[in-house]
């Protein structure tokens, strides 16, 4: 079934020049395996189309059950020249938590739909 990431993971984002970077963290190992399989560079590129203009990079970190995601070209050139309210990209992680992936419905720490 389709599950939004906020139900099974947490995330923080930040900025470096024109790059927005996101750490996405599974609450448990079983969920991490699902994230690693389903959160692909292609799906991320589609989710952030219209926001990010550069390539998407992705690294899994098994030791901390995390995915490191970098959007190269997401901040209108950088926080100090950005016209956006969120010039620092602090909410890019919230954008990501809205992405839906295919996941089993019995993941251990899945939050109920609001």
């Amino acid at each position, binding site marked *: 079934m389709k599950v939004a990431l*906020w*139900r099974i993971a*947490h*995330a*923080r*984002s*930040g*900025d*470096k*020049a*024109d*790059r927005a*970077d996101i*750490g996405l*963290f599974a*609450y448990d190992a079983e969920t991490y395996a699902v994230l690693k399989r389903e959160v692909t560079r292609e799906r991320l590129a589609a*989710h952030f*189309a*219209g*926001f990010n203009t550069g390539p998407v*990079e992705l*690294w899994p*970190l*098994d*030791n*901390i*059950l*995390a995915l*490191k995601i*970098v959007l*190269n070209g997401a901040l*209108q*050139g*950088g*926080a*100090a*020249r950005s*016209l*956006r*309210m*969120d010039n620092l990209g*602090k*909410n890019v*992680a*919230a*954008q990501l*938590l*809205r992405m839906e992936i295919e996941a089993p419905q019995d993941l251990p720490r899945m*939050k109920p739909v609001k």
Partner: protein
Amino acid sequence: MKTVRIGAGLGFYGDSWRPVRASIERGGVQYIASDHLSELTLAILQKDRQKGTASAPPAGYARDCVPMLAELWPLAAKHGVKFVLNAGGLNPEGARHAIAKTFRDKGWQAKIATVTGDSVLERIDELRAAGEALAHMDSGADIASVRDRMLFANAYLGAQPIAEALAQGADIVLTGRVADAALTLGPLAHEFGWRWDDWDRLAAGLTLGHLLECSGQGSGGNFGSAGEWAKVPDYAHLGYPIAEVSADGSALFTKPPGTGGRVSFDTIRQQLLYEVHDPHAYYSPDVVLDMGTLKFDDVGNDRVRVSGASGAARPNTLKIVAGYQDGWMGTGMIGFAWPEAYAKCEKSAEIIQTLVSERGWALEDTNVEYIGYNSLLGANADPTYRDQLNECFLRMTIRTRDKRIADGFGRLFPWLGLSGPPYVGSLKGVQPAKELLGIWPTLVKRELVEKNLKIEIETI
């Protein structure tokens, strides 16, 4: 077995130092590592340096270091706590003089060191003559395109000069631009006598510095999540993080007893990856860290054991971040109540666009956002309730080369109050033009910067 306890100071220029008191009083720290400089802060300090007045002479350093030390120093001295801060910004000597004056006025004693040599703005031509292209790290663009608009250019220095200043007996070390984590790695290398090619230990120190450099973000603040953030206890008294470090570089990561916030596997792994690019090659001037071998053991009660860092040899280059003038931003805002709050914002944006095009204003870019709907989530905002919003604010921003256009843009909006759509709010004055800055990251051979390194100590 010897351990060294280092506590986080500020995480940015303007952050609160109130929580640092608990780290000194109850956290048993020997050092406070205080990070006052984000990527953008030097731009703010450059403007400050240009615009001094008689009552507030130009400083060029993060002014908050003076009241912070004035308030905390008696307590720090009593507990034998030393401070390492990058608050020197573009003028570490100026910061030292301001602090020295305060200390003399109060009759306090201290050895205050400055580390300088990071600023290369005046050396761009010299560096280029020495064969450094200083091309943009990502785009490869030629620096000539921004050279005459450049406002600051500083290399990120490492932990060695900080350790050296401490070895010379400094109680307070003031730097300009250094790698944020060097504020922690410097004291650790000094205390444990780590060799500068002991890559795994240096990588461990870098890890801890990175976990400490954003103050409350390392102890439960800004815990990005749905629902979980609400379980973080007592935000009002959130304690800043502390690392209790052993000689092998492993550490117990925690916070002072009796404070709010949370140190857990969840909160510190968020900080570990914060503003990191390739986690297997996290560059600093002193070592390259691979985060893939780190181990975090949550042992409960706001304590996490951190171990397993692996490091590779430091780079032969240092990173420079320069900032250049990149046009002006004009801002206009207006808010509307139900009914049709969003539709009225959209109509107002259309009216403003018409006025702009009739004036023939040359704009490089226009940004239209609806506060209450999509100003933070952008294209990922959910449109389901867009047409039933209780209220909505239009925020429009433009980028232009002409400051007068940027100023004029904001002045288009108040007129809408009487001549636009109904049930209007937020007519709170006009926002003036804001200067925009481009960031220019580049690399330089380290010895070309390091030959100008200078450590000075003033005894008060």
